[in-house]
């Protein structure tokens, strides 16, 4: 998929992977709509992209809130054009320090599912119908190895990501033949604010720089038409083009 001229909507766009992906795709010529809850950080990223000659828009919203879903989809389409690529990057760990399931409040568990699972479902539902009508589009779900490994204290987050992975596979099965593709990408451990909250003692030297990871994520988006819809891809193991993509289904 040619990235230049595409309308790209990224949730969780004010920092970490989302902001870095926004910068990279805007540099490659995409019209980028960044959604986040945090105003100042979001404005800074949008201003920075514009200062470098890219097209970016910002919209304050909470993907975990039903009221905000059509606002996000509508504002993105109004400002950046009919959405070609939707990246579900926003997610929450729930309260930190992370806690055992036996110590997790049910409301906190529900909030994690609202942001990490129900929000992406709602937003995909609001956007993918238009994509199917136009005959093409890409939805990227950002996941984690916590979706496949049972790490103690990562219960709510891990369950939300496992369900998001499976949701993408079912979307892919249902959207087959429409031109709308689904990919799930696991970026690996990165030096982000979210990682620092979850694992404050981790050695930053062992963590990837989001700016480097997004170059590979952007390449995956660019190569999406060659990757089976519904694939789950570990970014660190993905090899572009020549030898064919190594999608881990």
């Amino acid at each position, binding site marked *: 998929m040619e990235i230049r001229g595409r309308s790209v909507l990224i949730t969780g766009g004010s920092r970490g992977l989302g902001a870095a992906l926004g910068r990279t795709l805007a540099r490659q010529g995409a019209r980028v709509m960044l959604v986040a809850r945090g105003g100042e950080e979001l404005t800074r990223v*949008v201003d920075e992209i514009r200062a470098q000659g890219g097209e970016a*828009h*910002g*919209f*304050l919203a909470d993907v975990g809130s*039903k*009221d905000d*879903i*059509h*606002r996000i*989809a*509508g*504002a993105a*389409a*109004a*400002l950046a*054009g*009919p*959405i070609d690529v939707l990246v579900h990057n926003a997610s929450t760990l729930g309260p930190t320090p992370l806690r055992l399931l036996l110590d997790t409040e049910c409301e906190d568990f529900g909030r994690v599912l609202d942001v990490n699972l129900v929000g992406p479902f709602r937003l995909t539902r*609001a956007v993918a*119908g*238009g994509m*199917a*009508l*136009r*005959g093409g589009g890409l939805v990227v779900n950002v996941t984690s190895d916590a979706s496949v490994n049972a790490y103690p204290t990562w219960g709510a987050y891990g369950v939300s990501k496992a369900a998001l992975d499976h949701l993408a596979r079912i979307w892919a099965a249902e959207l087959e033949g429409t031109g709308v593709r689904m990919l799930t990408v696991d970026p690996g451990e990165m030096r982000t604010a979210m990682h620092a909250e979850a694992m404050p003692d981790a050695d930053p030297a062992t963590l990837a720089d989001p700016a480097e990871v997004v170059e590979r994520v952007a390449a995956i988006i660019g190569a999406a038409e060659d990757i089976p819809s519904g694939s789950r891809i570990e970014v660190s193991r993905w090899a572009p083009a020549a030898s064919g993509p190594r999608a881990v289904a």
Partner: protein
Amino acid sequence: MGARRVRAEGGRVKTAAWPRDETEAERLLVVDPARGALADFAIRDLPGRLRRGDLLVVNDAATLPGSLEGRVAGSPIEVRLVGPAEQGTWTAALFGAGNWRWRTEDRPAPPVLVPGSTLVFDRPAGAAPPLRAEVVGVSEVSPRLVRLRFDRDGDALWSALYRRGRPVQYSYVRAPLALWHVQTAYASRPWAAEPPSAGRPLTWRVLGEARRRGVALAAVTHAAGLSSVGDPRLDAALPLPEVFDIPAATVTAVQRAHAAGGRVVAVGTTVVRALEGAAEGGALRAGEGRTTLRIDGRFRPRVVDGILTGVHPPGESHFELLQAFAPEALLRRALAHAEREGYLAHEFGDSSLILPRSL
């Protein structure tokens, strides 16, 4: 799009007062002008009424959060956005005191505004800071039709509109409508002042089944305008010029359907206006345009062969438009049948398919 209600004729058709859960079970009155025949179906039967090679064209405009409540010089006012106008301004219709529970024709007129009047939109309370707009032009048609310049544009304006605005409300509806009540299953750019409601009952299961049967699907984006405003002078001028965008793929799909003997079926009157407006010069052309086309029984469609629409009584502008597709006597017979059989009308009502050789 809401039908313009000029007279109270056909008032015996009952009204759907709330979106129904099972849209595929909503009723579909099939009218075949080639045979002069009527038959009752449900929305789920729509694919079976179409044939391989037919083309279904929908309007993918999302509905604007175009109803804004605020004050002007201390008096309450409601603004309904019609759409963007020249140089970053917006065309809007004004409503006086009262709220969505009042019929538009019963609402007091808004204060007369002049260029320079400032409107302050501070509802809902608490969402700081208020959005403001200045009147920069007043229409000669009616003092209630104005051009506004908001105090912000771009990202900041769209944020404020989605924070402050809500879809246009209807007095017959049970409770306030949210955006999710009015969006179609394929909505994209928010261009419609009121919902393109003919597509509302279409689920992706129905659209997918139509495709599997060899029916093609295409889109236009058409800025469906406001329905009745309650001001006779303004209502008589409706529909106002409307903006549309026809993708090249839709032009190709229309040509392919007609070349193969298929029928082009418009989902809603807005699609008819867009396609026929874009073909006014002769051939259907891709791209953005603007139409002032008024369609009635004298109009000979160049592109559209049939229409999926609501249940529209005589007296509505929609009823006039439908006469381009079926004789008035047949439409009146269809309406009498709909009344007798308990069909429901208006935005959340039942549907009719007017299409030659559909029975």
